[in-house]
């Protein structure tokens, strides 16, 4: 893997063109740009995409924001669709219809809806069969495209339109599913959890590694959604920083079952720091709801300790 330099990385040709219809300040396209920078300049890609915010906004006929070949099929089958593309690549190469110099990489994007829930089976199948591809989940913690409904990736107590806060409800009742661990248990060559850091080094390193590791790889990228999370739009980098520093969203890698921590905060911040700037958690700060934050913190701590153990820390 190359030595990292933001300048060198930003010099690469842009693979996501402007003119797509994502919201101003959207985290998903920041994630896409970062992941695609993991590709070496001479390599071409076929990008897959599950139905969701990214797909409807990035390919609205006749405007495609993708500079590489792109296929959208349906909501739940990004994994299966790209499996087919990858198999086609193997055959065309075998038959000599593609030359040695024609290298393609396969990267498919899905939101947490199309990945954790409706697309789970298809993702699991693709990972289990070991296709040489990367599945990237841009995790914004809800079915954002249809109007912020809860997914299994939604954190506990979040206010969503199907787990609304009301006199009898504190929001979503379950903790978020730890999908990276589930995919790691598929014993694939590479799984990583990441988000945006100011130098974008973590996501870049992991993207490049995922793309260039032979076999199936999975990247779980936390991609904040200003509309669904209700924070001040320009603040996205700070939200990501808080997610990492509170250990809500730890950064790690798993290679064939071997866990490595990418970053350990010197001072672990209390979860309130992550929750406070977001409107979807504002009810947690009402007097009388203190215990909810205590529970949230307990679960964050439990998962963090578990992760430290897995990473031999």
């Amino acid at each position, binding site marked *: 893997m190359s030595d990292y330099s933001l300048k060198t990385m930003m010099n690469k040709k842009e693979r996501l063109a402007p003119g797509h219809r994502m919201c101003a300040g959207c985290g998903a396209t920041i994630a896409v740009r970062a992941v695609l920078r993991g590709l070496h300049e001479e390599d*071409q890609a*076929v990008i*897959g995409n599950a139905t969701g915010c990214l*797909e*409807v*906004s990035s*390919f*609205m*006929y*006749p405007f*495609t924001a*993708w*500079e*590489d*070949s*792109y*296929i*959208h*099929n*349906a909501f*739940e*089958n990004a*994994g*299966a*669709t*790209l*499996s*087919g*593309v990858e*198999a*086609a*690549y*193997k*055959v*065309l190469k*075998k*038959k000599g*219809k*593609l*030359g040695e110099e*024609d290298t*393609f990489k396969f990267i498919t994007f899905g939101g947490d809806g199309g990945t954790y829930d409706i697309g789970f*089976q*298809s993702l*699991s*199948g693709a990972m*289990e*069969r070991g296709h040489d591809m990367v599945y990237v989940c841009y995790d914004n913690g809800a079915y954002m495209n249809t109007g912020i409904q809860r997914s299994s990736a939604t954190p506990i107590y979040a206010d969503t339109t199907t787990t609304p806060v009301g006199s009898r409800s504190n929001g979503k009742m379950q903790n978020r599913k730890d999908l990276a661990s589930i995919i790691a248990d598929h014993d694939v060559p590479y799984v990583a959890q990441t988000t945006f850091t100011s130098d974008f080094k973590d996501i870049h390193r992991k993207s490049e590694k995922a793309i260039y590791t032979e076999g199936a790889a999975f990247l779980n990228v936390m991609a904040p959604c200003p509309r669904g999370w209700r924070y001040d739009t320009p603040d996205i980098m700070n939200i990501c920083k808080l997610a990492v520093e509170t250990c809500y969203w730890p950064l790690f890698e798993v290679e064939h079952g071997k866990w490595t921590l990418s970053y350990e905060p010197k001072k672990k911040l209390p979860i309130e720091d992550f929750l406070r700037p977001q409107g979807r958690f504002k009810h947690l700060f009402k007097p009388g709801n203190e215990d909810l934050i205590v529970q949230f913190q307990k679960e964050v701590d439990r998962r963090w300790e578990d992760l430290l153990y897995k990473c031999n820390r």
Partner: protein
Amino acid sequence: MSIKERMSGNEAVSYAIRQINPDVMPAFPITPSTEIPQMVSTFAANGQVDTEFIPVESEHSAMSAAIGAEAAGARTMTATSSVGLALMWEELLLAASNRLPLALALVNRTLSGPININCDHSDGMGARDTGWIQIYAENNQEAYDNFIQAFPIAENPSVHLPIMICQDGFITSHAVENIELLEDEPVKKFVGEYNPEEFLLNPGKPIAVGPYSVSNYAMEAKKNQEDAMENAKEVILEVAKKFYKMSGRKYGLFEEYRTKDADYIMLIMGSAAGTAKEAVDELREKGMKAGVLKLRVFRPFPEKEIAEALKNCKAAAIMDRCESYNGNGGPLGSEVTAGLYRNKVIIETVNYIYGLAGRDFTVDHAKQIFDELAGLVEEGKEVMQHQYIGLRK
């Protein structure tokens, strides 16, 4: 030079697949089509094909992967039956709307409930509005011949639509019959190489597939898809002509068996056509002018040609091996009568539902039907327009 053999319908289609040597086959097992993916993966395991077989985890994923592979530039096919086809429904629509010429070997089995593994046409019929070309076979020979014609039809530039080659589950797929196989080389030449102009894996020429579209474009796209389906009829006939040159076997939109001077015609699809022909031969011996119109191409629906073929008879029995649950009959019952009406052909018709979930359709049943038609025409007997044959009443 033909090879005389005997094999089941599944073996025959698998033999054709080996000769065609498609690039990619994603598949999920389901009775009674399971043998096809099994045989193909055995061919692959023994290096007899270059096919990349993908053992996907569901039929929905089978069609999803097929769409990915075909869009990527690989000649792709799969096989399924019944609820496997039903599970793929969303994807069938996308294969057609994305104009991908992939092939599917459909081994007809009834849709659930109750779950039952035997033959009827509810699976293929359930997909009749998905935009796929559908061709039905009476026996293993036709299943084999139809499959060899599949890709040349689908890949024709004026078509570019996916195609389903259907055969009756267990009756055709598993029964061993005589067959005349073609040699490998002529089949390879007939089917040719798949060289699409635009595809995902085209170096330096990226494409984007599967857009979101506002209403400004969607209706126009659907019209274009319909135009392609209409073009398919001519292409099917052209390919059949070429196939005749290679094999000596003639195919068209349907087979007219002793219908030229027939007073009573049974319109039927699939293996039961053989039973009907048997009945016709016996009735002809007794002096009744009976005939069988065996429909081969269901989609696109050759309404005009059917009306033309039926116009001189006195009464037609329209045989449906599935229910439409529309309160008035089965799919062929609706489509054939609509065709007759639109072409100003006024004859007596009766729609019979038969053979559901593998219920046997016998020569006696067929003779009963012809007698009923004769009764209607010659004696003015009252006949129920929509009825079941072979049902315990």
